[in-house]
């Protein structure tokens, strides 16, 4: 299925949970926050959140700032 992740179009084997996407991207889920179609997904719900064709995913983390 096709997803938009941080503004980039990506092909991803589905069906799959959000936790699979995080693992596939090589990210530590304890260090990020995720929005799916403008709704925040609580960290505890990554495994239970099924991805769907066309989902808009934003994955963010803390960086340096003033």
């Amino acid at each position: 299925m096709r997803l938009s992740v941080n503004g980039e179009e990506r092909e991803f084997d589905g069906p799959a949970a959000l936790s699979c996407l995080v693992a596939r991207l090589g990210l530590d889920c304890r260090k990020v926050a995720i929005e799916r179609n403008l709704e925040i997904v609580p960290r505890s719900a990554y495994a239970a959140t099924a991805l769907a064709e066309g989902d808009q995913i934003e994955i963010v983390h803390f960086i340096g700032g003033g």
Partner: protein
Amino acid sequence: MDGSSRLEDDTWTVAGRTFRSRLIVGTGKYRDYAQNAAAAEAAGAEIVTVALRRVNLSDPGQPMLIDYLKPDRFTFLPNTAGCFTGEEAVRTLRLAREAGGWDLVKLEVLSDAKTLYPDMEETLRALKLLVADGFSAMVYCNDDPVYARKLEEAGAVAIMPLGALIGSGLGIQNRLNIHLIVEQAKVPVLVDAGVGTASDAAVAMELGCDGVLMNTAIAQARDPVRMAGAMKHAVIAGRQAWLAGRMPRRLYAEASSPMAGLI
């Protein structure tokens, strides 16, 4: 507080959280996160501001801020830098709340990229959205006592007026306004932005501010870790001077040595 009171007992409280350090430091513009962490330690900071941005998907193994500045050592104060509307600020801070797990945040809604001056009308609107969503917002604002009061009435947990433009290092441009804001506020007031060197931080504290927030003054010093230490001492010195109560200003001299007994 008399002269025998210990420095460690001089605390300040924001949104129910009590801190000893009155110096909040940013985490931007450093050479790397290791230098950043060393400067934050040297500053004696207990709170650091952080920004929220997309993860770099092409290099997920790159260093991450929280590997260097540990959330169990520092209270992270997520900011809304780069947000120009209330909705952008709320969206950013909701994600920050999920990432960090707490609701103390720094709201800044800016007007234009050249001055980064706060858009106060939009800042006030954003604050109301955040308060309705359960956030405790420390608010970056201009040095306008009227808007400072409106922010406080709308539920800001701290008022953070600029001393000068972000990153300008020009020091506090309008001491009178900062003084007026301090005098009327019932929540903590922190000068945020504009500090260039240690004496600027001392001035902020001598005006009665509860704290100072700075980033560039430390990060862009030739020796950031040394400057962080200087800022720590300046904030303590200014705070102690404020508590001690300065002597009155006089136009003319008043001799320190008695005239009686002169040969």
